């Protein structure tokens, strides 16, 4: 099912949560809504679900205007951040709930057959008689997914699905969700504030800031060509140096960088910590090493430019650390954005 949002607006009391968002999600696509807290991503997801109604604009499911359809008739599967499993029902009863309240009557045998099938799909065979309080967080999240899938939703919506789990479980569930999505081919929209999760899982990433879409694209597109300083910063560690642009050239100390389409005046130069080479001889920006942080696969070096701006870069584990060593920072893949 294709989903289309057409200039959707939502205001809570005096706070405008979503400012005219338009977005097309193709049938069968797995899309991440990525943004910091307060960026309006969860509000958008809840409006697609029908748990909130937009103040302006429209939401289409296929060709049908779904804006005013109630959540119970919208045919979406929703997975809540904290699972929202019914605590007084067993795992099996939770999964069967949607089928039991459905208008299409199913026989008890049909329901229990489908519950078993779904438990196999989420790899929780044999747990149907446990209560939610008796299983782990990762298991609960999978039960929540099975429950959402039980009603044959046209669209699957997940709100920070792995937010409450620890790192290893998150990574496993991420890969596993991708596999389930590929098997079922169901249009899926999920919300996250974790860039790694969005890039790992999604076909397409929608980056939001302050209720607006700031960039949409495949993980490759948004990583290789961040549309703004915000996206550059949000997607991962980035160094930021103040530079001066004149004639589409950005200058810091005596080093210049291409700055296409940037107006003359002060601007900002961004680059990733991995895109730096430290040199002892005279190329690049002059800097002094201040500190080093060791990581399993590299050393993170903290340096200061001669005018006191911090730079962080990654070096090989063999990098020799000497406090106050002078040298030059050579930058690959620099990006200049207006200040």
């Amino acid at each position, binding site marked *: 099912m294709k989903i289309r949002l057409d200039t959707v607006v939502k205001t809570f009391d005096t706070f405008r949560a979503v400012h005219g968002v338009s977005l097309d999600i193709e049938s069968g696509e797995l899309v991440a809504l990525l943004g910091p807290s307060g960026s309006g991503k969860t509000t958008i997801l809840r409006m697609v*679900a*029908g*748990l909130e109604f937009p103040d302006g604009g429209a939401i289409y499911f296929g060709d049908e205007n779904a804006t005013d359809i*109630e*959540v*119970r*008739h*919208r045919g*979406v*599967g*929703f997975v*809540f951040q*904290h699972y*929202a*499993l*019914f*605590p*007084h*029902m*067993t795992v099996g009863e939770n999964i069967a*709930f*949607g089928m039991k*309240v*459905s*208008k299409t009557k199913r026989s008890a045998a049909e329901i229990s057959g489908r519950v078993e099938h779904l438990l196999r799909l989420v790899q929780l065979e044999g747990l149907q008689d446990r*209560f*939610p*309080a*008796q299983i782990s967080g990762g298991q609960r999240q999978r039960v929540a997914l099975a*429950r*959402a899938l*039980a*009603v044959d939703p046209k669209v699957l919506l997940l709100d920070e699905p792995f937010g409450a789990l620890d790192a290893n479980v998150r990574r496993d569930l991420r890969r596993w969700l991708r596999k389930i999505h590929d098997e079922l081919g169901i249009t899926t929209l999920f919300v996250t504030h974790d860039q790694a999760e969005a890039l790992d899982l999604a076909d397409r990433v929608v980056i939001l800031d302050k209720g607006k879409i700031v960039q949409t694209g495949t993980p490759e597109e948004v990583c290789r060509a961040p549309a703004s300083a915000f996206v550059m910063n949000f997607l991962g560690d980035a160094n930021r140096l103040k530079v001066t642009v004149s004639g589409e050239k950005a200058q810091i100390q005596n080093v210049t960088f291409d700055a296409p389409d940037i107006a003359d005046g002060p601007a900002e130069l961004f680059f990733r910590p991995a895109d730096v080479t430290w040199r002892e001889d005279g190329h690049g920006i002059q800097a002094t090493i201040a500190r080093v942080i060791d990581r399993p696969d590299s050393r993170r070096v903290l340096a200061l430019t001669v005018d006191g701006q911090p730079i962080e870069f990654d070096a090989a584990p063999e990098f020799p650390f000497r406090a106050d060593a002078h040298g030059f920072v050579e930058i690959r893949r620099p990006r200049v954005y207006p200040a």
Partner: protein
Amino acid sequence: MARRILPGLPLTLGITLVYVAIIVVLPLGALIFKAASLGPEDYWRIVSSERAMASYRVTILCALAATLFNLVFGLALAWVIVRYRFPGRRFVDALVDLPFALPTAVAGIALTTLFASNGWFGAPLAAIGIKVAYTPLGIIIAMAFTSLPFIVRTVQPVLEELDPALEEAAQTLGASDMEIFLRVILPQLAPALLAGLSLSFARSLGEFGAIIFIAGNQPFETEITALLAFIRLEEYDYPASAAIASVMLFAAFTMLAVTNLLQARALRYTVKG
């Protein structure tokens, strides 16, 4: 004994046990001792006399009716106070405790005045043929009035803690409002409702002050068990009074035990395992 982190167990346990012994167990023990001074035959004759049986019937049926009324109305009241924001909400919330604070005799006199056949409520009701004061209906109203806070105050905190996401989840799964109430909300309120019901029922069984003013106290018709025990007391027939009281004690104890069992059953899903 295993070492404990928190200090003060021997002291607090000692105080608690002494307190329970003096304030609760001793009077009840004296009651049973007094009742036991009757022989089994005398005891049985007193507690199964026609007048006593009639008083049990009046007390229990009226208490049941009052509790059922409170179940519906108390749940609705708790629901409104928790779920909605309206002017005067805090005032309503405070009013709920009034039956606890008001001397029950005052409540009884006020209710009698209102529901007497010339009272504000009694007159119009009498015009359509409903007599409240000096009938079992009056007893029910007095019981319902004094035991209302139990249901509201036990259900309210549980209702406040219910996760709204559960109702949203049920909605996304296609459940109607009624289905959500019956299958998602009510089962989670059940333990608290049971607790409130049993307290409300127990209070109704034991209520005295509010009832005797409105009930009319006709033996076999509107005489409650507590009053019968009181009448025997006034006749200096202490053993008979104790015998009747022991029946009430037994009834209250059994009922609370049964509710505890039911509650444990209703809460079995919270047990980790």
